[in-house]
């Protein structure tokens, strides 16, 4: 089933929201308003948007440290996400997590986790709890290509396969684990082959710059996982335009490679699709872009005007 007209327009707004959000974060980082590490999602927006519409709202989502895009897609309030960037008490994690550690338990968004691959057994555990209670949720576990080389990945996939856990494992293959190209770090260039070894159905070469294709694949994978047959693995090709994080000298790739990739830009492609299909006019798209921009500006305002955590909050929430 394709996206409805309403969803199609929302998705355009959402992808723009993510891109504006990330562009502003880069500026705010340079200005010193955002600290720590900052990993931007620019170029990968279609995957988050696809996940937004391919899953049920009560399904679980968990991801790694490049988490702003999927957090916004999941519906975490833009204000609170930006406030978390600023380390404010109004942030999604009360200022204790930062860019890499967004979460919202009410939205079943179980976090950005910053140790590569560490959230993959968490995904298995989330799915195990649902399976245990006979609840038909699925868990979407997003990861980068680099995570598929770490032990956590193999232990988690094996366990999930043995127990037929309802997980959709989705590799956002943006071609580099930090600065090391997939082909230099992974024994197999087709990452999905690793998951095939665990006996789960796999789909490789999903075009992550194509919103509809990615949406349809996640939908199919989720349906499989929900049916009780176990995990499904997706390798989705994408590309990040910015460095791994803000401190990336980008010695591992040429500027023209990045420029060439921008020809496949997911937002531009979706805009063309919407116009071709007569779902939206250029004017309507411009309005949605403006809305996204305004939402980000309002979020920055909210974050700036929010208080930092009180000193006494230092010792709060270590234990339940």
């Amino acid at each position: 089933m394709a996206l409805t007209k309403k969803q199609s327009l929302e998705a355009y707004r959402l992808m723009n929201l993510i891109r504006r959000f990330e562009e502003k974060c880069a500026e705010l980082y340079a200005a010193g308003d955002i600290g720590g590490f900052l990993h931007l999602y620019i170029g990968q927006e279609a995957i988050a948007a696809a996940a937004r519409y391919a899953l049920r709202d009560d399904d679980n989502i968990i991801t790694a440290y490049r988490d702003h895009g999927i957090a916004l897609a999941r519906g975490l309030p833009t204000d609170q996400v930006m406030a978390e960037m600023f380390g404010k008490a109004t942030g999604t994690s009360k200022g204790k997590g930062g860019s890499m550690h967004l979460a919202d338990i009410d939205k079943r968004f179980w976090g950005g986790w910053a140790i590569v691959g560490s959230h993959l057994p968490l995904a298995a555990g989330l799915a195990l709890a649902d399976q245990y209670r006979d609840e038909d949720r699925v868990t979407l576990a997003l990861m980068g290509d680099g995570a598929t080389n770490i032990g956590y990945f193999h232990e988690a996939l094996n366990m999930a396969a043995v127990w037929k856990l309802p997980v959709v494992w989705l590799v956002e293959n943006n071609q580099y684990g930090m600065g090391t190209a997939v082909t230099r770090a992974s024994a197999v260039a087709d990452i999905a082959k690793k998951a095939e070894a665990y006996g789960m159905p796999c789909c490789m070469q999903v075009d992550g710059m194509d919103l509809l294709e990615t949406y349809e694949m996640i939908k199919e994978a989720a349906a499989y996982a929900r049916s009780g047959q176990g995990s499904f693995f997706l390798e989705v090709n994408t590309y990040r335009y910015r460095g791994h994080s803000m401190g990336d000298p980008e010695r591992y790739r040429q500027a023209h490679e990045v420029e060439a990739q921008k020809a496949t830009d997911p937002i531009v492609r979706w805009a063309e699709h919407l116009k071709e299909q007569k779902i939206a006019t250029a004017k309507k798209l411009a309005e949605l872009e403006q809305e996204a921009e305004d939402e980000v500006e309002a979020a920055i305002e909210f974050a700036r005007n929010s208080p930092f955590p009180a000193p006494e909050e230092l010792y709060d929430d270590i234990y339940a």
Partner: protein
Amino acid sequence: MTSTPDVAQASAQSGETVTKTFREAITDALWEEMERDESIFIMGEEVGVWGGTYAVTRGFHDHFGEKRVRDTPIAEQAIVGAAVGAAMNGLRPIAEIMTINFAFLALDALVNLAAKARYMFGGQFKVPMVVRTTTGGGRQLGATHSHSPEHIFAHFPGLLVVVPSTPADAKGLLKAAIRNDNPVLFVEHSTLYQTRGEVPVDDYVLPLGKADIKREGTDVTLVSCAKMVQVSLEAAKELEKEGISAEVVDLRSLRPLDTDLVMESFRKTNRCVVVEESHALYGIGAEVAARIQEQAFDWMDAPVQRVATEDVPLPYSRDLEQSALPDAQKVVNAVKQII
């Protein structure tokens, strides 16, 4: 300042007891809690069909079934990580790491997942889980299988670390750990499983984070936990023959660390020997000694002594290994140095 969870809970007692081994006490606690709460399940290597490599969960698989007693692959990161995920999502997992030596493989999952899931997201998540594991040297298992590193895990805020020494404590503390809403590392000394003691027959729940006086005395305080409580009690008997009265304080948990009872005892005896099964460097003794000089400096009549495992990897050969471990004679010698 260290972070201390609110862990006070205890149950009413009839006073009736029965003799049980340490192993049986743990088995009973697990069984009773599983019967009480459907959201509790066990996962680990050989916990099911095998019945546990230390036979703690024998019969569980048949009684509770495959869903609640889950044999896992040999994959410590996934065992602990999946337990954290399941706990975040509403279950109460009891994960077993066959021995604490293998918990190093899950160090990241314990430290960066279990211990951080709550704080790092502003208190949104609860992680009600127990990781049971065995510890201790002295069984000729060689250097990799003979560690006693439970204090390392106690270093990290977000975790609780429980180290029982008697069957009754094992039952009461394990039940408390299972009912606690935080991740608890529950450490069972493998040479204690056959030891016997009186165990309350009731639904026996002890508060976490309360030390216990295992023997009263007036001349010196011996601070220890787990197997080293036995060693300390043996030493106390020897010392008694020489007219030295030793008080034995069993910490029972390393986090929270109940220094109140240690100080109470120390202010009476003015002397202290800490007996620990790991290496002394950055260990339990180091922490207790620091606390004593911070909190009871004016009561100190002598430097705090430490009896620990020699600063070597443990060897295989029996007598050589035993020579590296703390024993009653070493404790007696340490006491005599400060009396």
